[in-house]
């Protein structure tokens, strides 16, 4: 029957889309588990290094590293962690929106901003935006390694050492749970030692080998790297979780759409049959 051919074609095409979104949902679910495990695995290191930094702030070092000193802010650097691929709901755009809001309020205080971007989505967004991008890294894949992002971080750290930027931030999505990801802007430099417990603050200091400057330099660089890396794996876990949720709702919506279209199609078909019967009956009566 020729009735509702367009509707049938449309239903078929939506069904195909639904198949794709279902498959993506399943893939995202299994990837999410992996990325979450990875996120757990990287935690001991960042916890440990944060602990050492805390110890360090309790000690009384004879040498204060430039990473720990505050200075008047004229220019800030932001490392933005985004995903390489899309189709993960509002994950990236929420993050960018929050970052831009912060840029605006810095702009009002005449503070300049420079960014380095990790991830394809961030690159294409900030490229068209007139923000100064000093470094970028893309295509890190599902299992990023620290080596992949060291370059991006080093550019910023060098700028900080040379006084080109006075504060350094990292923007990423914090993994709260599968349903919730929260965009977060965290200060990296100067290092904030706000958890200083006074009763622990002693008059001791570490023995440094070879000397305080070199060891601290190494340690603090590693600390910043570990924070960014932790952000990156967390952002990855967020990406998969957000994609899973987005794809699930896409599949659900496709299902709803198919049901509606099916109903319309059935009604049209029914109407056509009824009309035909009444025509036949009318014709028979006329004879």
């Amino acid at each position: 029957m020729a009735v509702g051919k367009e509707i049938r074609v449309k239903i078929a095409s939506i069904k195909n889309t639904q198949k794709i979104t279902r498959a993506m949902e399943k893939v995202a679910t299994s990837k999410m588990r992996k990325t979450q495990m990875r996120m757990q695995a990287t935690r001991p290191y960042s916890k440990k290094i944060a602990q050492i930094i805390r110890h360090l702030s309790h000690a009384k070092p004879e040498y204060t590293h430039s990473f720990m000193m505050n200075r008047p802010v004229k220019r800030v650097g932001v490392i933005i962690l985004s995903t390489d691929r899309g189709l993960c709901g509002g994950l990236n755009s929420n993050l960018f929106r929050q970052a831009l809001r912060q840029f605006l309020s810095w702009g009002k205080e005449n503070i300049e901003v420079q960014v380095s971007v990790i991830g394809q989505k961030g690159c294409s967004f900030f490229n068209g935006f007139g923000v100064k991008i000093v470094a970028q890294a893309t295509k890190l894949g599902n299992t990023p390694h620290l080596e992949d992002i060291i370059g991006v971080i080093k550019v910023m750290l060098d700028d900080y050492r040379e006084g080109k930027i006075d504060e350094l931030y990292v923007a990423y999505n914090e993994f709260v749970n599968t349903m919730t990801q929260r965009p977060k802007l965290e200060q990296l430099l100067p290092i904030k030692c706000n958890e200083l417990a006074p009763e622990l603050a002693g008059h001791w200091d570490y023995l440094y080998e070879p000397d305080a400057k070199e060891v601290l330099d190494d340690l603090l660089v590693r600390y910043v790297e570990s924070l960014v890396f932790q952000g990156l794996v967390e952002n990855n876990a967020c990406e998969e979780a957000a994609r899973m949720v987005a794809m699930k709702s896409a599949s659900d919506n496709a299902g709803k759409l198919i049901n509606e279209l099916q109903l319309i199609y059935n009604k049209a078909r029914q109407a056509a049959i009824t009309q035909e019967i009444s025509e036949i009956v009318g014709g028979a009566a006329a004879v």
Partner: protein
Amino acid sequence: MAMTIHVDIVSSEEKIFSGLAELVVAPATEGDVGITARHAPLLTRLKAGEVRVIIDNKQTLPFFISGGILEVQPHVVSVLADRAVRAKDIDEAAAIEARHRAEETLNDRSGKLDYAKAQLELIEAVAQLRTLDRWRKNR
């Protein structure tokens, strides 16, 4: 049992070891250091090499690290490794190959090859192999 000290070895991607030990020997840049309980607080850089965790006089665990930071508090030793592997996981073939590659690069002075990088690679490969050898002997 002698006094023990808590040891944590972590790399940026995972936790490698956590537990009590009598002595920890680590390759600091100024020479190997041995840490027992109640050591003074110490912060030092580590070079590529082997960290040995001596749990008691029967059991010693070797780990390979490619550099990192060692922190000592009186009752806790933390090794922040750039990359750490349990000695038995080291891929010997890969280590030997890496050494060959590095040696070739070193010998081939003609080109504008990255001398410093090759040297680093060589040091790392040799340290890996040494760790593996020792682990085999002690088994």
